[in-house]
């Protein structure tokens, strides 16, 4: 079943184009990571999916038009837009009461079960909880809802490592099953790399790259090469090269060269150094970092240059 289907999605704020003809199809059971620099249009795309913003083009979420049917859609869709959106005056028991009151698919016992594993007290106000606890509370509410689609927009922003790890662990172990679909945007890509089933890069309102994680792992290779082998490795046409501690890291796209099989290339490359699957962040830099006018990409490569 197709959960999200977008065709030619456009959105402009004045003269700024946030979405420039986005085509998107998310199938049931997938965990899609939407990765992009700040202002790339990630949040706008998610807001359109959630019926929070108007758009041009075609968009169907679970077969509904999110803009005109937001309230019905929210029976089957959950989202955590930012950890800060729970109102500060709300008490934990009030949050449970309210969601239980208005949501037909909320399993209160389940939410209580999640909360019992934390140190959150029912009588606390949201303003009295730490940022990590607010995220736990929000996640407990959301995970107790039997939804078909979960949208996470920077869900772990500002959380410490422990909470971030816990967040994705609970999501995978206690929530995700093959019938649920998750769309997540984040800047902390290394944390979601093992979680995702699909990957999508968005830049300046356009989807510039999309593949499944299986494809990602079989298609891209990275090797760290000592200076004496760099010329030989370069002959194999890497799509990106970056310096690291006196050596070079070369990134290869197997699709770019159909003559060479993965095993063959891996064999060739292993003569130069350790071969591994690149991180999403490295591929992101390789694909988007060198484009003119992409400031955040340039800043990243400059940073790495400086680190050397």
């Amino acid at each position, binding site marked *: 079943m197709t959960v999200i289907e977008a065709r030619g999605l456009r959105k402009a704020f004045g003269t700024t184009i946030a979405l420039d003809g986005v085509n998107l199809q998310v199938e049931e059971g997938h965990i899609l990571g939407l990765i992009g620099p700040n202002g790339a249009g990630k949040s706008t795309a998610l807001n359109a999916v959630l019926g929070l913003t108007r758009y041009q083009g075609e968009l169907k979420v679970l077969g509904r038009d999110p803009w005109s049917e*937001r309230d019905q859609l*929210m029976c089957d869709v959950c989202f955590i837009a930012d950890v800060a*959106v729970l109102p500060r005056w709300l008490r934990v028991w009030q949050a449970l009461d309210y969601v239980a009151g208005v949501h037909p698919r909320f399993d209160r016992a389940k939410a209580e079960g999640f909360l019992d594993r934390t140190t959150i007290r029912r009588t606390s106000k949201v*303003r009295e909880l730490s940022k990590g606890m607010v995220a736990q509370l929000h996640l407990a509410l959301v995970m107790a809802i039997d939804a078909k689609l979960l949208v996470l927009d920077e869900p772990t922003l500002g959380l410490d490592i422990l909470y971030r790890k816990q967040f994705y662990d609970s999501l995978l172990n206690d929530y995700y099953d093959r019938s649920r679909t998750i769309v997540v945007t984040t800047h902390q890509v290394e944390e979601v790399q093992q979680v995702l089933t699909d990957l999508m890069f968005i830049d300046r309102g356009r989807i510039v790259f999309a593949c499944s994680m299986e494809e990602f792992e079989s298609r891209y290779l990275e090797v760290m090469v000592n200076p004496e082998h760099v010329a030989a490795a370069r002959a194999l046409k890497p799509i990106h090269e970056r310096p690291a501690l006196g050596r070079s890291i070369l990134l290869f796209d197997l699709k770019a060269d159909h003559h060479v099989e993965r095993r063959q290339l891996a064999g060739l490359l292993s003569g130069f150094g350790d071969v591994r699957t690149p991180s999403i962040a490295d591929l992101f830099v390789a694909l988007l970092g060198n484009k003119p006018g992409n400031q955040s990409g340039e800043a990243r490569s400059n940073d790495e240059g400086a680190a050397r």
Partner: protein
Amino acid sequence: MNPQSNPMPESPRDPQITDSRGIAPAAMSATRPMYWSVRRELWENRSIYIAPLAAGVVYLLGFMISLIWLPRSMRELAAQHPVNQQVALAMPYSHAAMLLMVIAFIVGVFYSLDALHGERRDRSILFWKSLPVSDLTTVLSKASIPLVVLPLVVFAITVPLQLIMRLLATAVLSLGGGGASTLWTQLPLFQLELVLLYSLTVISLWHAPLYGWLLLVSGWARRAPFLWAVLPPLVIGVFERIAFHTSYFGSLMHERLGGFAAVAFDLKDKNGVTLDPHFIPLSQLAPGRFLSSPGLWVGLIVAAALLAAAVRLRRYREPI
């Protein structure tokens, strides 16, 4: 911010008890989101009942002190005409009701101005919108606070307050001076309560467009909703005065704020004598005239239009 170190300022209700009516998911009725949305407003805005309650308590304390002079003033009253007696006797009771109504009006105005603004300011609108509650339900639940909940709160506080006042006055009069029976014969039980109920209904219906306007502005303004709500009508009034030397707009506003009294009550008795508004006999209520007055219906249509605009606006609004 460690919650463990924060002692809880008030005793909470047990969440288990509140949910004991838990309904099976399939049996979710249309009124349930409405009910919980109103509850939600009361959780957030406790001034809705605390402010009138506090005013009632303060008034009662003042009344208890004033009881010292009650026997003397009863003796002075005995010489007066029965109508004047009634007015003088009813004075403290109607003052209590008026005080609470004024408090409720102020609370209602400030509540309405914040209702659709605060949720955008603190970004919690994103949380509320993540739940299956329509914008219509949300706006109606917010409109119901000044239009239904606050009048009910005033009624629920005023009636026992007036009863306690009556009993205290009776006790004082029985202990010294006499005249307790005059109090009960001149001010029959239920008379004040009925007039109060009628007045609250009338005022709520008459002021509906006012609250509709405030809610619309609170959903629209990015900042300073109070100024946006108050200044434009003021500017229009001043402009009309300067440009055309007329004040239709001003009198329209004045009519909307206080015009209900002249429509809903017969403030002249059958001899054409103007009655004191502190004591309005049941015979002087004019529900028929009120219900057939164009002012009421035009006002309600305007209120419905303003609320519809607020519902539409909430769909487009994002956090500020």
